[in-house]
């Protein structure tokens, strides 16, 4: 088992279809421990469906899904609880429970899996998680309806992180955020990964996010993952969609921004050594 220990998510030959429309056919993907993997693909290529298949919300027609080495398909709920304790999921709309406050939302997974924790400790955990994801200290007793979109996503992350998971699923975390908020969110994810050693599975359309935080990018097209690799590796491939995606005007802008930043950083360190 030690060999497969480094593979957190393993998808083999996944097949999904809705009626006549085949979404995935023979999709393979491996996610390594500790990496931030970005999943990209045109609208309707089934990025969210893939995530839902991995986390067990969508029953695939065929194939194999393993998370932490555990097979995920055709298992009953009790058998999956052990896996569910070890991951956190942020849905596209944050999916906070609207009848609970932010603090209560964070406490839901804790109460579910560890009913013996004292109220005081639960409150304290909720409090420091709220601060950790960058919410204002007075956000605790607020209801999701009282929060802005960005704050809601942060609260969603706080809930996803409640159990200190090893694996974090993020479905378009920066969609609908302003560029400043999105950049702060990217930073938050990198921070959390460094702090907690998370593996992050990230669906995104945000090229800046892809360039700044993703170790590897998986490209979904033609019903399967056509390529996985770092962005330079992907750019070396001769695939029309990939080229268009990363070489389009937006892709170039993100790339330039990335390069400028890297240059600034080297200049800074060079300046430091010279002086």
């Amino acid at each position, binding site marked *: 088992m030690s060999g497969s220990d480094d593979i957190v998510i393993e998808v083999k030959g996944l097949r999904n279809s809705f009626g006549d429309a085949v979404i995935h056919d023979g999709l393979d993907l491996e996610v390594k421990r500790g990496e931030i993997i970005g999943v990209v693909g045109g609208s309707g290529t089934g990025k969210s469906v893939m995530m839902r298949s991995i986390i067990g919300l969508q029953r695939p027609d065929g194939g194999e899904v393993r998370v932490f080495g555990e097979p995920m398909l055709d298992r009953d709920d009790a058998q999956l609880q052990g896996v569910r*304790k070890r991951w956190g999921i942020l849905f596209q709309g944050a999916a906070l429970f*609207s*009848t609970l*406050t932010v*603090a209560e939302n964070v406490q839901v997974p*804790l109460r579910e899996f*560890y009913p*013996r*924790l*004292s109220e005081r*400790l639960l*409150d*304290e*955990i*909720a*409090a*420091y*998680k*709220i*601060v*950790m994801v960058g919410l204002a*200290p*007075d*956000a*605790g*007793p607020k209801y*999701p*309806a009282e929060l802005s979109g960005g704050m809601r996503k942060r609260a969603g992350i706080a809930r996803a992180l409640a*159990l*200190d998971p090893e694996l974090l699923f993020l479905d378009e975390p920066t969609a609908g955020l302003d560029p400043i908020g999105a950049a702060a969110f990217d930073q938050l994810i990198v921070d959390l990964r460094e*702090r*907690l050693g998370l593996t992050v599975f990230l669906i995104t359309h945000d090229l800046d996010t892809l360039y700044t935080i993703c170790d590897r990018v998986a490209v979904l097209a033609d019903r399967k993952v056509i390529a996985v690799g770092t962005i330079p590796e992907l750019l070396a491939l001769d695939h029309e969609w990939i080229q268009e995606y990363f070489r389009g005007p937006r892709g170039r802008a993100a790339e330039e921004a990335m390069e400028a930043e890297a240059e600034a950083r080297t200049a800074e360190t060079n300046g430091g050594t010279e002086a």
Partner: protein
Amino acid sequence: MSSVARFTESVEEGRRVLRFQGDLTLSRLGPLPTRLDRLKGRDFLIDISGVGRMDTIGAWIVHRTARDRGGEIVGAGEGAATLLRQVEKADLPVKVRPDPPAPFERVLTQLGEATIEAGRTFVGLLGFFGAMLLSIGYVIRQPRRFRLNAVVQRFEVVGVHAFGIIGLMSFLVGIVIAQQGAVQLRQFGAEVFTVNLIGRSSIKELGVLMTAIMVAGRSGSSFAAQLGSMKLAEEVDAMRTIGVSPMEALVLPRVFATVLMMPLLGFYAAIVAIVGGAVFCWVSLEIPPVTFVQRIREVVPATDLWQLLIKAPVFGLIISLAGCFQGMQVKSDAEEVGLRTTTAVVQAIFLVIVLDAFFAVFFTEIGWL
């Protein structure tokens, strides 16, 4: 390797030492926090060099112990030190619960809020009715704006689709009235008057009342839920900005369809109830259908039917108004859609029954016995 978190307490070189061991992670915590709470004394030397894995919750517990008991943390590896720094940075006074108001104050507040809400609803409903009348005025002046397709579609949903359930319900109600009536009337040897009971109560009251309740439950609630979700998805706002009046596009077709379908459904319900009664009379009281129909024609005056036909559209108006009004009031979240839907049905049924009482008195006064 992995082991349950635990701690030992000892005195070394005149200092009290708290030594943590095992994995300080959420899943391995066990009863450690409770035991830690029971610990007495202050100013510990907290040694975490024996700790295996640690997560933020473990780090938090160590940090909290050090903070509350004025201790010093030693033996932290690089990873643990980072985690401790992180939780220390995140240790801000955070409000977790809303402030609880005083009980007396809370009762008063709720009472006041309920009163204001009741007043607002009444005024709002009146205003909504007015707005609807205005938009009927516009549509009459510009008949092209009347949305025939939407209305016809509502006919189907409100009327045709309700046929099955209303028919079944009325049929059964007819049988029940006949059966219960027959049992009581038999004591006076007046079984034959069961026919009067069935005919008059079905046409005058039960047919239309039961239909109204069913339509409120089926269509009133769905109006509220549909319009509520549309408001949440900003569809209603989108309509307004495009220049489509939600009143004309959403509310009028629903109100119109309900007002028109209610008399038809009410009449249908009354007839089916009579059929149900007739079946019972035939089977149980041996009154043949031909005789039954003849008796019905003799004992049920035409005014009973007029009552039905006057009441039904009014009830339809109330049901659809309450449904649409509550739906359009949705502002914040999905929970509100549910609340508004419930309110719409309760309000509609309540108003229908109150109005039915008024109608009963009114019709008696004008001699429609």
